[in-house]
């Protein structure tokens, strides 16, 4: 008896809730529902927790503190729905489907990493949601942007990354600052394979001597053999297309072995605040993928806000600022359209120009026109040094200063 009463009461409550739902849907937009699926567990967590999640949370709070997103004359708060994709592509696609069909979100923020952005691309394209991929580096970007006009690839292509690096090396060689022996290692996983495949022909074409060119499996726990072999070859340039744990291990091992080439370049993770915390003074002169215009007022302000919002934690100096900018771009596009009209927002993204912390962004064929590809630690910040034509590019410090005892 009691249970059936309870059940009836629950049913009644459910019906009422459903009715209320209809009522709000029929009335004017009172909130904008924004959903995202992010790797909160599994192997992608380390990247997502530094680059993506802090920016999503910080942006949502900032927008709501300011009263929300401006739709026409009034401001509408945003409401966040978030799921964990457990670092798996299937889970990410399922999460996005759920956001679209069940939660009926108005906009979707992308997952972290190249693989997951590629995985959720088709469904976002099919359902017509803007897709601002801020953490994907892929050579397919121009092709995908054409196939999925709703998608924007803010980090560019691995060929772009490799060629910008080689251009910098050529310039430094012309200035007689470095010789022409290069040692290259890469992780045997998506990022490392893509980048080394793009760098190899570019280096050969520029007549560099590739003295060492090997890959190592993901999860390798001791990189000392690689550093010892490379050190014996005494190259001018060391290039590692590595992931965060290996970036730290290769740098540490090089310091211990006293391997100090004129150019020391490592991959993902060089731009992480952890890198600076761990190596302190020894970061000086280390190059890596990414970088930002550390001298610009917008970046300084972003860094200060990020630290204030995240209990002192700093953003990474590459994709973090790009991720935050992608959110600013989305907000500005929605505000210019003035209503939740995804097709119009996509059109605005394609044609408009946007003010962000990384400067003015205007997409051409759904790709930005400038990227930071090589950064260098100089005096405790990771400044962009290449392409040299970018606003705020610093001159590279070459040769890299010697390692000091920690």
């Amino acid at each position, binding site marked *: 008896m009691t249970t059936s009463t309870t059940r009836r009461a629950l049913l009644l409550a459910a019906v009422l809730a459903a009715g209320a739902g209809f009522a709000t849907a029929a009335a004017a937009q009172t909130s904008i529902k924004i959903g995202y699926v992010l790797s909160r567990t599994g192997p992608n967590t380390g990247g997502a*927790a530094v680059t993506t999640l802090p920016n999503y949370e910080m942006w949502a709070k900032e927008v709501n503190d300011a009263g929300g997103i401006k739709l026409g004359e009034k401001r509408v708060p945003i409401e966040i729905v978030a799921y964990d994709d457990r670092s798996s592509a299937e889970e990410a696609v399922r999460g996005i489907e759920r956001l679209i069909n069940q939660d009926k979100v108005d906009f979707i923020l992308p997952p972290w990493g190249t693989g997951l952005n590629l995985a959720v691309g088709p469904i976002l394209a099919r359902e017509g949601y803007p897709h601002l991929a801020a953490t994907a580096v892929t050579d397919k970007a121009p092709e995908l942007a054409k196939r999925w006009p709703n998608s924007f690839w803010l980090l560019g292509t691995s060929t772009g990354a490799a060629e910008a690096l080689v251009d910098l090396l050529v310039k430094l060689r012309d200035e007689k600052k470095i010789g022409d022996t290069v040692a290259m290692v890469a992780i045997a996983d998506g990022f490392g394979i893509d980048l080394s495949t793009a760098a190899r022909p570019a280096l050969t074409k520029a007549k560099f001597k590739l003295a060492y060119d090997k890959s*190592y*499996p993901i999860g390798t726990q*001791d990189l*000392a*053999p690689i550093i010892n072999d490379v050190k014996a070859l005494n190259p001018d340039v060391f290039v590692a297309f590595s992931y965060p744990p290996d970036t730290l291990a290769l740098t540490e091992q090089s310091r211990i072995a006293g391997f100090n080439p004129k150019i020391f370049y490592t991959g993902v993770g060089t731009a992480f605040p952890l890198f600076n915390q761990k*190596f302190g003074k020894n970061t000086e002169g280390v190059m890596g993928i990414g970088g930002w215009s550390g001298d610009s007022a917008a970046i300084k302000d972003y860094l200060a806000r990020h630290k204030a919002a995240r209990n002192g934690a700093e953003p990474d100096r590459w994709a973090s600022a790009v991720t935050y900018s992608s959110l600013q771009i989305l907000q500005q596009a929605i505000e210019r359209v003035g209503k939740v009209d995804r097709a119009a927002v996509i059109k605005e993204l394609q044609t408009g120009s946007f003010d962000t912390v990384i400067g003015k962004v205007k997409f051409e064929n759904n790709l930005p026109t400038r990227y930071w590809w090589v950064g260098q630690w100089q005096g405790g910040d990771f400044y962009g040094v290449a392409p040299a034509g970018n606003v705020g590019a610093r001159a590279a410090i070459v040769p890299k200063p010697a390692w000091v005892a920690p």
Partner: protein
Amino acid sequence: MTNAILTGLMLGGMYALIAMGLTLQYGVARIMNLSYGEVLIAAAFGAQGLFTGWALSPFAGLAFVIPVAFLLNLAIYRVLLSPLVRRARTRDALEVDSILATFGLAFILQGIMLSMFGGAYYSYSYLASPVHLFGETIAANRLAALAVCILLGGSLYLALTQTRGGTAIRAVAVDPAAAQLVAIDVARTAAFTFALGGALVASAGVLISTFLTFSATSGVVFTMKALIVVVMGGVGNMLGCLVAGLLLGVSEALVASLIDPGLTLAVNFALFLVVLLVKPAGLFGRASR
């Protein structure tokens, strides 16, 4: 060549260190502990917290982490696992049940660490200075880990073979039913050994945190590595653990510098396969039944 062997020995020492606790937990207490790697990572976080918060050296931190890990593991065994032990009719049944229970425990531990530390990578520098040995340069923290591993492994081996308590532990490993007949308190010995294994893996976590980058979700890597070493060395055998670990480490380093660093995993698994084909019970294991 000398360098490759030296780095290999240090890598192998680390593998052995990671696996020693599991060989006790699996070999004696018969708990196939899948939350093993998470315990290791928890200890690494503990060491990192003591180091960054109180500037306490990880080696001094061991004095704190080891007893805490021992007590926590004892509690885990008493609360979570002893009901399974009581219920299990055979050792095989206990193995299956413990796999399921500790699989769940792994997620709980990982969830706690994720909520406390977030998903980001952690790393700090301790004893990251060069040491010159046989004309080669190696990292002091890795050398220290190898030394502690040999010390712990050696003293445990002696304790297990030379003392009365150690003999009791080995008796339980070989035949728990018969051990009861000679007045060995099997339940107690198993609980003690499980907790000892937990303390060992915690000390491994502390040492490893001085040179490896870790995050709340990287535990499973260590569980897998430990499992390979334990099975290869012979379940429950300390010496086997040490030999298997060193063998894996040296072969990995040799292949990396003589052939190609891309083949290290392949060599690891090839070696594992060969050992299992030739000696299915592991290098030092005795075939049971």
